[in-house]
């Protein structure tokens, strides 16, 4: 991702992550259907990088964030923790060979011996690297490295604990240091997030929302993590305080080479924070690009609509705006084909039939849309060629990226 072409090491490599929540009903609460909260999400998180995860409410952003910490177990798919570059390359090759529907687990229907071999190799790699195959003991060690800051600073801190107890609890759980060292660490943490060390003798209710959110960040930092999920960390805060918290997060990242997954529905904040952005719609990724590319040249119609829907604080600026009609469909019964086709302004007949593959349309700019049937190098298509061939060939390039 940096200019010299030497990529920083990958912290987490997420592949085909899925989570179906069962709908219980009928006789004795049998499973009558699934809410497909997350339906095949893949991306990589590099060291020292912020990935923005954006989408409307109910699109599965938070579920992805929680699965990366194993707060929710996925239905299928894997998150590989710190794969070496060779493993990473091998994973790419294997996943490309894999039919998209199997999700990297053995529960898919393997076609022929070659596919079976692919699945077997993936299984071995998963056993070695995937978060979801770690034993409870190994996972507990890892939890120090993977942390989360929650959305609501008012309900994520225990009202009955002193700030010093809140901050030293993770250290105690992981048996980190002596009592004196822990106390020193608490002081340091409070300083790191711009609070007064004397505040450690207070209770959470004595703080304002912004201060509480900083305590939440300090708690996440206690065990020197490598990766933090920021689940809408500023949506409960006012703009002037939001800027304080965002600046602290940026400074901490520069100091400690933290990787962030920044989940937000607020695109302006995402633009200010992230290096790369993943746009989700109804459980699937529709577009991934470097931040500037995504905001200046959005390709997917959904991203374009999302961007144009955001009010800009400048009364003199008048823009053409794409107002999407209707609501997000229910994830329990997602539309066939491209999930966005029910609201898409550039919908074509093929959209309701074929699920568009994720293609690298420009350098480091991936998009899943029938408007862009050709990747820059076709080998990057993760779909098998036979699947995507005929209906896409005739698809006209109607809309162009602006």
């Amino acid at each position: 991702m940096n200019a010299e072409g030497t990529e920083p090491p990958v912290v987490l490599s997420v592949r085909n992550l899925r989570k179906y929540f069962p709908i219980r009903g009928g006789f004795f609460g049998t499973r009558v259907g699934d809410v497909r909260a997350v339906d095949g999400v893949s991306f990589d998180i590099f060291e020292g990088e912020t990935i923005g995860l954006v989408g409307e409410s109910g699109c599965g952003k938070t579920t992805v964030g929680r699965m990366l910490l194993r707060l929710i177990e996925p239905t299928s798919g894997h998150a590989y923790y710190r794969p070496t570059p060779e493993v990473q390359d091998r994973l790419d090759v294997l996943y490309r060979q894999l039919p998209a529907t199997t999700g990297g687990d053995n529960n898919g229907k393997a076609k022929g011996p070659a596919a079976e071999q692919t699945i077997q190799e993936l299984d071995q790699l998963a056993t070695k690297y995937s978060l979801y195959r770690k034993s409870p003991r190994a996972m507990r060690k890892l939890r120090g490295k993977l942390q989360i800051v929650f959305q609501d600073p008012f309900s994520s801190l225990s009202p009955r604990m002193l700030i010093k107890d809140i901050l030293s609890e993770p250290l105690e759980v992981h048996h980190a240091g002596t009592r004196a060292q822990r106390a020193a660490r608490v002081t340091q943490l409070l300083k790191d997030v711009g609070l007064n060390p004397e505040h450690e003798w207070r209770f959470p209710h004595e703080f304002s929302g912004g201060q509480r959110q900083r305590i939440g960040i300090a708690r996440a930092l206690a065990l020197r993590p490598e990766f933090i999920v920021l689940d809408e960390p500023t949506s409960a805060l006012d703009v002037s305080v939001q800027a304080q918290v965002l600046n602290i997060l940026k400074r901490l990242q520069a100091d400690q080479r933290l990787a962030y997954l920044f989940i937000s529905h607020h695109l302006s904040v995402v633009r200010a924070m992230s290096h790369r952005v993943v746009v989700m719609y109804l459980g699937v990724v529709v577009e991934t690009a470097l931040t500037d590319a995504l905001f200046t040249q959005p390709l997917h119609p959904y991203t374009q609509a999302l961007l144009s829907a955001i009010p800009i604080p400048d009364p003199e600026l008048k823009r053409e705006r794409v107002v999407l009609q209707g609501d997000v469909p229910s994830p329990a019964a997602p539309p066939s084909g491209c999930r966005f086709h029910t609201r898409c302004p550039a919908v074509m007949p093929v959209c309701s039939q074929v699920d568009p593959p994720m293609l690298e349309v420009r350098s480091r700019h991936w998009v899943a849309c029938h408007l862009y049937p050709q990747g820059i190098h076709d080998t990057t298509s993760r779909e098998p060629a036979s699947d995507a061939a005929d209906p896409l060939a005739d698809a006209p390039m109607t809309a162009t990226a602006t």
Partner: protein
Amino acid sequence: MPAAVAIPSGANAAPLPDSRTPRLSAEPVAPLASVDAAPDDSTILKVRELRTYFYTYDGVVKALDGVTFRVHRGQTTGLVGETGCGKSVTAFSITRLIGDPPGRIMSGEVLFQGADLLWGLGDEAKYFPIADSGRVKVKRKFRRIKAANERMSAVRGRSISTIFQEPTQAMNPVFSIADQLSEVLLLHRGMAIIDELMAATPDSPGVGKAGAELIDAARSGVREEIKAAAKKFGAAARAPSLGTQAFYIARATTSRPEELRRELGKSLTRLRLNSTIRRYLHYQRRQLEIQEKLNEVYFSEMTDRAPHTVARLGLRRRAGQLGLTHLYYRIPFFRARLSNPLKRELFWRVVSLLEGVSIANPVQIARGYPHELSGGMLQRVMIAMSLSSEPDLLIADEPTTALDVTIQAQILELMRDLKSRVGTAILLITHDLAVIAEVADDVCVMYAGRIIEQGPVREIFRRPLHPYSQGLLASIPRLDQPSKELASIPGSVPNLINPPTGCRFHPRCPYAMPICKQEIPPMTSEGPGHLVACYLYQGPVVPP
């Protein structure tokens, strides 16, 4: 009969009823001293030196401490500020919806079209300070509070309506959408609706022909054609709601003309009201009329502050009368049969209201309950509800905060459309400066219970004067600009139990001077319509 809503409107010759007979008199009334200072023609709402306090166990929270602003006719005024600065309290104070206890409006003036909405405020409670504790004992006179509430119902919902922040909490979960909207319609426009229902002519000669045309149009299946034909059909029977109804029947039975013919026949039959039903509707109408007149008396009392006790008591006695026939109307079984035509009429009016806020399948939605709808849909229902009475002022309290950006765009589009089509003045309360930039004409920036800067939207965004406004504008991340270090305002919003002395912003202000700690800066004028309360500027002082 006169139109349903006949509240005398502000400056253009507010008719004042004679103190004994609550009838509309034609002569304009000489304005009294208090009304004299009242708004000129362009101002619809004037708030002056409004103070609202909350009496809590911790002490007195001075949520509003001298708020002064105006809303102009047909314009959108934005009220912007951080959490806890008193934006929502302002909205609730205007219609006197502050939860009491603990809240009390202490003093000030809220003039809406010449009527003093803070009528009888001084008599409502007495305050006894408790020595050495900084706390106050409040003795409320609940009869007075009740009387004021009764008067406010002449204004709430009909001249001033409010869209609340949380649509899921503002709707009643046990009534269907149609029921809830029907209630509002009946209350505010009931007389006109009953008149129209009784004036319908289902047997007039044009109806049969229009019906045949509608059946032809339905066969073609083109939405617009069916719509136009259905409208004609409704017009022929002089019942607009029949048009709406016919349209949805035709849509449902496009390919089955026989069924459509039958259904249309049924709808027409239902419009033929028998004498018992007509008598019941007359009764209903009279009840509404009495309430309407009572509201007029209330409104005039708030305008000229003279009590019209006799007229009021007479009306209330009439409203309470219960004859033998009326007793019959109160028996649920009979009442249900009699009120069906009115209910049906209201239902189809609700459907066309929902169409007006671009809800795709209004019939199903109207039959549904609030929990079946998404936040965006419910917010649109709320907007339909608050606009059904065609209010002069719409208070929108964070109407899009709970919604997604794509839905927010839809709602903002709708509000802009309403402003241009209906000419409603809007008081838009939000913490999102970007929303203000998109829809507002004027902006008031609030900080810790006071308005610190106000002016036209372009002026405020191009040339913010108060250090707080400057900090607020600098701290928004911009979507249209690449990322840079965000400016932030140090510190946080002060505690309003012990607010900072002088200018309440001085502890966070980069330019704080000694005088800022001691005295409250007055509003000064810095250019046309641009007011700011800060000692950095030496413009002419504007009295509140």
